């Protein structure tokens, strides 16, 4: 699991990666730089994922594959994986989104 997160955190500009339980918003595994409050990010990601899932179902769009939240001082990137997990990356605002997305999708496939 840590090796999976390793591949995400190796991307330049990524400040941390986590596996989060989507149901309860708790961290399953993490690799975070100092100063990032993992529990807060995990709770936020799970909360957003739940609301987004319901909104997308209501809109008839199916399930989300990847989402990207851009904030002033950082970026949150999330891939919902199997077994109700979320693969989450916290990154700098100017990170290469495409590259992180690719690694997150790979990590999502590796999560059983």
């Amino acid at each position, binding site marked *: 699991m840590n090796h999976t997160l390793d591949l995400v955190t190796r991307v330049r500009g990524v400040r941390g990666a986590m596996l*989060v*339980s989507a*149901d*309860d*918003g*708790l961290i399953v595994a993490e690799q975070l730089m100092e100063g990032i409050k993992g*529990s*807060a990010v*995990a*709770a936020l990601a*799970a*909360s957003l994922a*739940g609301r987004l899932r*319901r909104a997308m179902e209501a809109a008839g769009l199916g399930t989300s594959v990847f989402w990207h939240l851009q904030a002033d001082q950082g970026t949150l990137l999330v891939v919902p994986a199997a077994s109700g997990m979320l693969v989450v990356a916290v990154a700098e605002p100017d990170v290469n989104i495409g590259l992180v997305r690719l690694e997150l999708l790979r990590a999502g496939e590796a999560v059983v």
Partner: protein
Amino acid sequence: MTARAVESWTLQPLTAFVKEASARLVLLMTPAGQVLAQSGFSRAVDVMSAAALGAAIVASTGELAKQLRQPPFAALNHQGHRHGIFLSTFPMERGTVVVLAVYDLDVSSLGLVQLFYEQLAADLKAASPKGSVPKQVLAADFERELSDSLNTLFGR
């Protein structure tokens, strides 16, 4: 959702917690089951039951920890199909405070509740009147005190 407090200094931290954690019901009480504040309850009898049951769980898990020669459990979470129940205690100058929170799994999560519970504990510690000793409730006064508390909590 209306929050009411017997101890008025608990109201602002409680209201913030309810809003941030999207909690459906919250009870702040002492380990003896004496209610300090509540949010979301509509009937006095529900508050009395929840306080008694919450206090009993804290007492029994505390005793279990003692038997295991461990410090008391930090928190207890029960996840049902639609709701989760979170029960935890933290020490304050005035004594231990018990927090019982019920949350809908549709709108909240254990992660959110835990996150904002830490903030609630910090806010309550900051808001607590310094140097004051909480009033002890004697057995002889218990019924009157309970009645007064419920009147305050339900505005009767």
